[in-house]
């Protein structure tokens, strides 16, 4: 058995870098990364069989349920190589698997020398995996291609081995074949990690430099910071300093995860572990920053530090106005663990008090919303997501708009909108429909490659605003679920954009305003007014619904006045029944939002702002 007991394995702070291998696993959401990780924990003996539970490393409920990993972790695995019978320490660094967390992924990759490229051999590689693979290759990581789920009846390892070989420039037979489920091939994989991935190199005598690749808030311990030591060492007695801010912290604990946290005497060159300083907010311990010591600080930071920049903004409003303070509290709490989340108070005529929140992307937005609802028990309305527009006015003044209601009326010289580079992978039969979708969304084609005979990679540049507006759902439905998407911001471009306002009885409803391309303004106006006509109940007066650009009305619908709202009869003197019915209806009315004199049900806001038409129609069923 090549497992070695933890007690006898090389100890933290006393491990020769030549014995260390740092690697991560790059995989798409459901391609079996967590199952493979579980299997590695079992085979190396760090988790005993009886303590094993599925997806051991995914901590938050939400991660386990959605099958995605949001926060990475690093696990120290002792391993005796079956090839040379030497002892090694493998540090497995788990990477987030989604498009919104590209920056976090890049820092996790920067902490490794090699990557296992894990692909489900029933499905083939997905766009996000490809994007992360390119990221790993840019970081000069050694790539070990692995086909997973070889136990599945639908497995096509030969086909996807060719695909992988084409992508990374190896031979199809170099692809390892494993089953995380049965454990087949996992020992070989561990041996190959030792053999192929180079050991870390660093200067143990130089001033300490450690890369923060993750930081997590723990309600008992405060912020737990995950680091990879590049030069020097960290010891429990050190006072550490964050390079970007210069802030000094006392070290309370340093240790490794195997797979539960274990305090250690320190961390040496090439080692991966955690440190705890008593800091309460992840923003003081930012991913990508360099940790050094106060007494002997490094003069040069590790490359690649960036501030996370929110790309997508949306208003979050409590359904019950009284829940506003709870929402603030919940956002404050969430921010302790999410350095990328930004928010500020916002008030809407229609939705009351809430917060304008900035997110890394759509998934990040969805996760935040879901966590707020689940962990704080709130019911929220989120407004249609918006991107960041840079508006130059005629007088040369520049303003940044993240909320359509702040968009200036007229006098606009130029509007810059964010542009992304999008990569779409799909079976080749869907090329036509994908190109049509991208064309509709103002996309510019940048290239197309066949990954294998029947799978293509299509590259486009697109305005981010077009992607946040139900692009992914459209892609999924057009490709019968096979298409996958990755995108990254590449800058800004001027666009011919206008704000479309929606007016009820002549009153502007801020929650429905949207910034759209001029060519699409009419279609947006027609769709929105028609949708609202269906959703707003008839009132005792006629309600015109208009879509307008400035003062110019581009679409109009009418809700006719209600003619009849009366029960003809009280059955057998059952006055109680009638009174209760009226009282119930009155309660329902309280849940309406008044826009001027017009009663608008909450459902109208939710449904009208739901960009995701598939989901909306599913709910109706």
């Amino acid at each position, binding site marked *: 058995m090549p497992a070695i007991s933890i007690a006898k394995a090389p100890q933290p702070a006393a491990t020769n870098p030549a014995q260390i291998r740092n690697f991560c696993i790059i995989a798409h959401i459901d391609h079996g990364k967590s199952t493979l990780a579980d299997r590695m924990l079992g085979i190396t003996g760090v988790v005993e069989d009886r303590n094993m539970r599925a997806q051991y490393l995914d901590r938050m409920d939400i991660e386990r349920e959605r099958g995605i990993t949001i926060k990475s972790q690093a696990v120290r695995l002792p391993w005796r190589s079956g090839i040379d019978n030497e002892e090694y320490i493998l540090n497995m660094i788990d990477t987030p698997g989604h498009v919104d967390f590209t920056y976090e992924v890049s820092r996790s990759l920067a902490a490794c020398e090699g990557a296992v490229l894990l692909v489900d051999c029933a499905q083939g590689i997905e766009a996000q995996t490809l994007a992360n693979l390119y990221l790993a290759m840019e970081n000069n990581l050694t790539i070990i291609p692995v086909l997973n789920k070889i136990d599945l009846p639908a497995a096509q390892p030969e086909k996807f081995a060719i695909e992988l070989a084409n992508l990374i420039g190896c031979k199809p037979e170099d692809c390892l074949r494993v089953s995380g489920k049965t454990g087949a091939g996992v020992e070989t994989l561990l041996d190959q990690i030792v053999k192929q991935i180079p050991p870390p190199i660093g200067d143990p005598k130089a001033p300490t430099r450690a890369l923060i690749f993750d930081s997590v808030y723990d309600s008992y311990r405060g912020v737990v910071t995950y680091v990879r030591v590049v030069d020097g060492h960290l010891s429990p007695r050190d006072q550490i300093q964050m390079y970007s801010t210069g802030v000094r912290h006392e070290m309370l604990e340093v240790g490794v995860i195997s797979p539960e946290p274990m305090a250690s005497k320190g961390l040496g060159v090439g080692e991966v572990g955690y440190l705890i300083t008593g800091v309460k907010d992840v923003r003081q311990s930012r991913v990508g920053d360099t940790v050094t010591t106060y007494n002997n600080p490094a003069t040069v930071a590790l490359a690649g530090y960036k501030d996370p920049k929110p790309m997508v903004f949306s208003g979050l409003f409590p359904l019950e106005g009284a829940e506003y303070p709870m929402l603030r509290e919940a956002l404050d709490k969430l921010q302790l663990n999410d350095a990328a989340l930004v928010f500020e108070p916002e008030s809407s005529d229609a939705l009351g008090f809430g917060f304008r929140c900035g997110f890394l992307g759509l998934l990040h937005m969805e996760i935040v919303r879901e966590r707020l609802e689940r962990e704080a028990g709130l019911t929220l309305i989120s407004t249609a997501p918006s991107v960041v527009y840079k508006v130059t006015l005629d007088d040369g003044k520049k303003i940044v708009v993240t909320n359509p209601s702040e968009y200036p009326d007229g006098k606009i010289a130029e509007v810059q909108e964010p542009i992304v580079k999008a990569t779409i992978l799909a079976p080749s039969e869907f090329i036509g429909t994908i190109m049509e979708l991208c064309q509709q969304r103002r996309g510019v084609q940048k290239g197309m490659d066949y990954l294998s005979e029947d799978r293509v990679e299509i590259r486009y540049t697109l305005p981010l605003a077009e992607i946040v507006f139900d692009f992914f759902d459209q892609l999924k439905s057009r490709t019968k679920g096979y298409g996958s998407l990755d995108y990254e911001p590449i800058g800004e471009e001027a666009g011919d954009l206008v704000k479309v306002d929606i007016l009820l009885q002549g009153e502007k409803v801020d929650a429905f305003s949207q910034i759209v391309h001029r060519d699409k303004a009419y279609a947006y106006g027609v769709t929105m007014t028609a949708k609202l006509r269906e959703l707003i109940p008839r009132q005792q007066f006629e309600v015109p619904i208009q879509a307008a650009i400035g003062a110019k009305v581009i679409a109009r619908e009418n809700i006719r006045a209600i003619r009849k709202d009366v029960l003809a009869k009280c059955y057998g003197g059952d006055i109680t029944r009638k*009174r209760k019915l009226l009282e119930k209806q009155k309660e329902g009315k309280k849940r309406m939002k008044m826009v001027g004199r017009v009663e608008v049900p909450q459902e109208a806001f939710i449904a009208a702002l739901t960009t995701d038409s598939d989901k909306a129609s599913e709910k109706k069923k």
Partner: protein
Amino acid sequence: MNLAFYVHIPYCIKRCGYCDFNTYTPSELQITTGLKSITNSYTNLLIAEIKSARKQVGDRSTVPSIFFGGGTPSLMEAADIESIITAIGSEFDLASDVEITLESNPDTVDREKLENFYKAGVNRISFGMQSAVPHVLATLDRTHNPDNLYQVTQWASEVGFKEISVDLIYGTPGESKADWQKTIDTALSLPITHISAYALIIEEGTKLAAQIKRGEVGLVDDDLTAEKYIMADSAFTKFGFDWYELSNWAKPNSESKHNLAYWLGHNWWGAGPGAHSHLNGKRFWNVKHPNLYKQKIDAGDSPVADSEDLKESQMESERLMLSIRLPSGVEKSTLNEKQILDLSGYVKSGHLDKGNWDSGRASLTLEGRLIADRIVREILL
């Protein structure tokens, strides 16, 4: 104290497709001996309840009206009706001008039976006409021949009834405006003094609701139903029938006292299964099933299923809800500032009468009558 009586007769030969009233057919009751035997023994149960009512009320109240509703009260023998009236009269004091109404299915009466009802003390008769149009009656699942209406109202008049009413239903799926006009015109050609016209309500759980769900019967457009109300009001008014409640029109002095008692919040006793009573701010109602009702009465127990002591705010809500349905409406001096503010919008929009509003009353205009519930919701406490 005044105490009106509602007497529920929960039996029908056949259930109509739109009906969700508390009524039962022989097959639903699983009896094979016909309805006669039930109605005979049923009379004794009602008399027992009337006696217990006296005990509960205490004094010999004056009874201004008795209403036999159903179900199909005209299935009862005149002798049974008479013994019920006698029972009420012996426990309480019948007012000298007591109004005694009996609902009647045009198919279940002949001249002789009407005469017997009249002799038994019934002085107001209300026929379930519903429509004069065969296809509308068919959708409603009614069995009577519309041509009978002229005959039965004529007989009723001949045997002595001075107060004759018909019930109409509008807004039946498939009913055109011309159909409804024909029903209106037919009703107005009858020797009657009173008309109730009710918009059809599709009740969950009825045969008609199921037919609509299955798509066998079309949906009804509320706007069209609203127009039919206006058609009816205009025709009835022209022929001297004035509205005195949202769904009721009468010749001068032919308003139903019993009907008004509900809308004016008077006291009444409802006897029989599922019947509702109201006594000085307390509402209570009987168990619904005739068999359970019989068990309770036979055992000497109260047949009351549940009750509700109205809080002051509920009483006030009911007062508003009920009185707004009458031409006199609600006195502004009884409303608070917020209610007056909320209602003033409806004066502007023409739903409340401007002249009456200025002289101190909130009363509905014709368009306002069509959205009475919406207006009441506005001011409900």
